[in-house]
């Protein structure tokens, strides 16, 4: 009997679904375990490391890091090197100390490119103690699982859904198996009882009767042709439309980290979007405004955006330094630059004129309207199709922002009277005329 073989496959399905369910539950245990890891700190005497961290971030972080040299030296374990009283003096007014000819002070000053440290007379000795307590915290030795974040980061809601679905699938499979078995059993019973199962009467095969009906053939041919024409047209109109184009860039730049997690305003880097037709790819000196101080990736170990390793991200920052010619150990520009050849993502044809400032500054449209939720993009891609239909649709639907703009005052008054509407769309303002974008 042919159907015997089915038993085997059914059992396989059941086994697989069970395994699936198990794996999900195992995962969820792993998650809990990870969150249970706590920071271990060894507070220095006479200081509160938690308050110290806040003070450090507010006052010192612009020039100092715990473990790496920036404008100023690395500060971890600084109490071991210098006497506390000396540190108080240094922090409160370092130039005075240097001027006094203190050997240590002069040495530190010379070691750090003779850059003068801001004086902090407002910090009390207790504050400095707190900061020092923070700088004395021992480096954590995190679990391996944390430094290599995997892509398997299921959310809690997802687990329960999967569980239910898996169970349902299992039940369904069992039911199907039962149906076959019942059928088999019934057939066997019928055979043993000598009851012949009625054979179906032979009729003309359906495809033959279809072929004989010429009308039906005609209709279906037309139907088929129209359908295929529809799909061919759809396919052809996709040519040159590069929606979701996400090329590999020479430097892995994550908008998610910059615009999303750190909340940097789009126009901080793409400043020319305000005044120019191009939004512009920021020049590398703009990157260095922040990256002079951020030389390594410092994403929190429990942050949700980590898809690559810390080392990977730090390596990408190093690529920036190579391009701009920045030596992070000496904190100096070497003068050897190597401009970055980015791959252009949004490519409008030459015959289209698009001006960012018109949309960004005048119309006040959010960048996300055309570029999508960039702050969630790990890899930047083209979000909108950038077809003419897409442009025109928006011009038809969007009201012109006339408030507070004297340019529109008179025109809007007269036009809205003419069309009998309160609000004018870009199309009604003449935003659909060919020559507005094609010249």
């Amino acid at each position, binding site marked *: 009997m042919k159907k015997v073989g089915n038993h085997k496959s059914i059992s396989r399905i059941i086994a697989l679904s069970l395994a699936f369910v198990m794996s999900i539950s195992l995962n969820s245990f792993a998650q809990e375990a990870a969150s249970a890891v706590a920071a271990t700190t060894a507070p220095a005497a006479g200081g509160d490391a938690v308050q110290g961290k806040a003070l450090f971030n507010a006052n010192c972080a612009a020039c100092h890091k715990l473990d790496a040299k920036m404008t100023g030296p690395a500060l971890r374990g600084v109490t071991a090197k210098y006497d506390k009283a000396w540190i108080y003096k240094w922090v409160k007014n370092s130039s005075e100390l240097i001027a006094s000819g203190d050997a240590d002070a002069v040495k530190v000053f010379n070691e750090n490119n003779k850059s003068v440290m801001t004086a902090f007379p407002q910090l009390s000795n207790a504050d400095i103690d707190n900061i020092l307590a923070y700088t004395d915290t021992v480096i954590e030795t995190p679990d391996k699982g944390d430094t290599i974040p995997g892509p398997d980061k299921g959310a809690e809601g997802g687990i329960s859904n999967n569980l239910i679905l898996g169970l349902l699938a299992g039940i369904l499979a069992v039911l199907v198996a039962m149906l076959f078995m019942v059928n088999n059993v019934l057939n066997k019973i019928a055979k043993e009882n000598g009851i012949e199962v009625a054979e179906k009467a032979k009729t003309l095969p359906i495809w033959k009767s279809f072929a004989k009906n010429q009308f039906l053939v005609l209709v279906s041919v037309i139907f088929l042709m129209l359908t295929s024409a529809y799909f061919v047209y759809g396919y052809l109109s996709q040519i040159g439309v590069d929606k979701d184009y996400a090329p590999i860039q020479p430097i892995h730049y994550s908008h998610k980290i910059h615009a999303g997690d750190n909340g940097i305003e789009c126009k901080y880097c793409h400043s020319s979007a305000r005044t120019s037709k191009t939004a512009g790819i920021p020049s590398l000196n703009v990157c260095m405004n922040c990256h002079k101080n951020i030389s390594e990736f410092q994403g929190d170990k429990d942050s949700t955006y980590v898809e690559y390793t810390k080392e990977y991200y730090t390596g990408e920052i190093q690529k920036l330094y190579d391009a701009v010619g920045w030596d992070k150990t000496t904190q100096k520009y070497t003068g050897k630059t190597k401009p970055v050849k980015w791959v*252009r993502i949004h490519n409008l044809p030459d015959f289209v*004129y698009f001006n960012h400032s018109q949309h960004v500054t005048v119309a006040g449209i959010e960048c996300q309207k055309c570029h999508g939720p960039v702050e969630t993009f790990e890899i930047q891609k083209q979000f909108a199709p950038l077809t003419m239909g897409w442009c025109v649709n928006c011009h038809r639907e969007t009201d012109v922002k006339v408030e*507070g703009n004297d340019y529109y005052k*008179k*025109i809007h008054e007269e036009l809205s009277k003419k069309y009998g509407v309160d609000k004018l769309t870009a199309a009604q303002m003449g935003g659909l005329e*060919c020559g507005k974008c*094609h*010249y």
Partner: protein
Amino acid sequence: MSSNKKYWKSVEELNENSSIVETLRNNEFVEEIPTNEFLGDAATLATSSTTRRDFLKYVGFTTAAASLAACEGPVHKTIPYVVQPEEIIPGVADYYATTIADGFDFANILVKTREGRPIKIENNKIAGANFHANARVHASVLSLYDNMRLKTSKIAGKDATWDQANAKIKASVADAKAKGGKVVLLTNTAASPSTDRLIAQFLASNPNAKHVTYDAVSSSEALDAFQMVYGERALADYDFSKANVIVSIGADFLGDWQGGGFDSGYAQGRIPQNGKMSRHFQFESNMTLSGAAADKRVPMTVANQKQALVQIYNVITGSSIGSAKDEAVMKAAQQLKAAGSKGVLVCGIDDKNAQLLVLAINRALSSEAFNTVNTRQIRKGNNADVKQLLADMKSGAVHTLIMNGVSPAYSLPNGKEFTDSLKKVKLSVAFAMKEDETAAISSIAVATPHYLESWGDVSIVKGSYALTQPTIRPLFDTVQFQDALLSWTGNTQTYYDYLRASWSGAKSWNQLVHDGVAVTEGVSASAGAGADFNGAASTLAKAAASKLELVLYTKTGLGDGQQANNPWLQEFPDPITRASWDNYLTISQADATTSGIENWNVANGGLNGSYVTLTVDGVKLEKVPVIIQPGQAKGTVGLALGYGRKAAMKEEMQVGVNAYTLYNNFSNVQNVSIAKEDGEHEFACVQLQRTLMGRGDIIKETSLDIFNTKEAGEWNLVPMVSLDHKEVPATSVDLWESFDRSVGHHFNLSIDLNACTGCGACVIACHAENNVPVVGKSEVRRSRDMHWLRIDRYYSAATTFEGDNKLKEGSEGLMDSVATLRGMETPSDNPQVAFQPVMCQHCNHAPCETVCPVAATSHSRQGQNHMAYNRCVGTRYCANNCPYKVRRFNWFLYNGNDEFDYHMNDDLGRMVLNPDVNVRSRGVMEKCSMCIQMTQKTILTAKREGREVKADEFETACSNACTSGAMVFGDVNNKEDKVTELSEDKRMYHLLEHIGTKPNVFYHVKVRN
């Protein structure tokens, strides 16, 4: 039944034993097929390892590879700055004020740069910047990107660094000093105070050195005359806006006479205001721009001009030197005298006596237009010095010759002699932008930067100081002459530091750099020894006439020929003859007939003409094409300088003949004899029709009398059409429902035919702004020129256009009409001339829009007729339906076809393209867009600043370039715009009004005094 007829193939067959018949019977082709040309190299073929099969494999592989590669979309790279300069925002243009001073053209300009590349020249309109850009200055930005420029210094033809070259020069100068040999600096007119100081320092430290100034086109006689009377070697300046009567004797002051730049002042007085306008008499031999603009033009030989000058001198000063009497001259002289201080006389005769008389006459008139205080510094060339230098070189007295900005080997009449005597000079150094005729034969050629890459200062007229600043980093390894001078005088400063340190005016240095100009105070006139004017007049009156005079002139396009490798200028049609890519002999119809010279049109519409050989003083110039020029004085012929260059020129640009070879004694008039030659020359002439045929609906003209006394309806006729069997004005009939254009902007362009001098600055500005391609001589000949803006030139068939109208109206009956109209096709011997700039008229009822099958051209609410290139499929219906013939078809991919080796097919030349305007492709119609990119930009700026558009803020490239005020652009819905007032003027009319297209470009009736 078969026929016995025998068909003869040729007469040869009658000859029974003809070998030809036999050969033809055996051979399929009459001539042997040149298979040997490509299969002849049997040895190579035999040794080649590529078999037929391999070949097929290669072909198959490459085809497959090519088609596979085509499947993948192109990857565009974008490279931002590493450190972005503060003042550059990608996509936003920066403007820098600077000054051009190339020895021939001088102007205060603004340079538009995009991402650090200069892309367009505009006029500096700040107070004090009075010298505006002409067509050549507008085109000079393209010369910056000339790929034939000298890219590094050369010693004896081999690439060398500046340090190597400089060491040699210094050694040679020291050697000369030690041995007492002469060192000569031969330069063009720099008009640069700092350069003059540097040269003076050099001369001071080298007592054996001498400075010679050499202008390729000399004004030396005028300078000598001025020096004699006023003690300063300079030229008088003229402000024609202050003159009511202008008399010009052979001076094309609207062209390049004494440095040009007089047109804006002249045009001011030409627009009738309160019933008055200036009256302009022109006595000249060639037909010039000034002659075309004149109210009364009298063609005259130069000999007669001299007599006329003496005659006027007699009338004005009351002296009685014997001279020929001429009625027209007398009339002009009397009016000039009556005008008194409101009159002015200018003269272009290269004769010291003539120039002395000019000074005498203007002094006697105490002419307000005549300015001897703020003198022109832009021509300093000294003929005597140059001659002395040549003699010294010949005798071997010159040890070291250092040249800057000049090419005597090309521009001296005896270039060969110069070349020979240059060999006797121990060290010759040419500071040159190109490896031109002179740089190629000099011991050292030093590459110099273009003015857009240089620092400098210019004093165009006394009392004004202008600055030249670089607008781009030097493209090549170049050295400025001034930096070299500093090095030779032992100064370690850079020229920039020197320049900056030497500024001591009231303005701060930064302000000066920003403005580009400063007015310096305290200029006073100096007085010279005075002169014997009567003596000069009597000498002049004795001038003998010659049989045929050759009058050399400079063309609006090429000038003295410095920018001959500039395709924009080569393709720029001469305003008078409308021929591009050539120079030619202009001759009167009468002289042409006697010499058997002809012009004729061939089947494709091209203009052909005869060749002649010119002989001046035994020097022959062969194969000079001839154009018959209406208005050319009988007994004179004209020929333009600046053509016929060969060195450092692209092949296409090596056109014309070198007229400098006939420029003997630096005089623009030569005795010549002509002899007709065989062969015919093919001209690239863009306008074949020559007369207006009495069609008053194209150019409306009237006289000041009629304009002042009659109603507008009489001289500015509105054409009548028949509607419902009634005669109604054409302007009242509308075929279509008219769109309401009262809301928002409505752009109009006004063109005043009174103010237009035909200078062509707008044509080049349009080229630069709109990426108009250059198509080359043979395409222009096929009427495929791409100019979006053309300046039509019309002659009258009678002596005046008014006469044309009378002729036309006077003819009765079919036969008479046909005969009259035929006759009217030929221009008069001394016709009136009118210029009319024509671009897309942006009709409100545009005939082109209704015939486009794909709706690629459509109308905007703002009055512009749009052209969507990406939509165009190239049916050319629109061009056929356009009554103004302003649409241009892209027959070829001009930016990607090696056949068109002009700037668009050149990596360097492409840098001049305007990134805001599309570069059109093949098979697409294009036309004037009324600079929509500029109007849109103005609107956007206003929007961004949250304000209304200011009055007269809108500009187009042409209106911006027009300094005579002929073109005014603006928004007629803005009551404060100047164009609104102009659109309501009674002189306003539309081109071909009777066809009801309702254009947004309008013209103003030309009024002649």
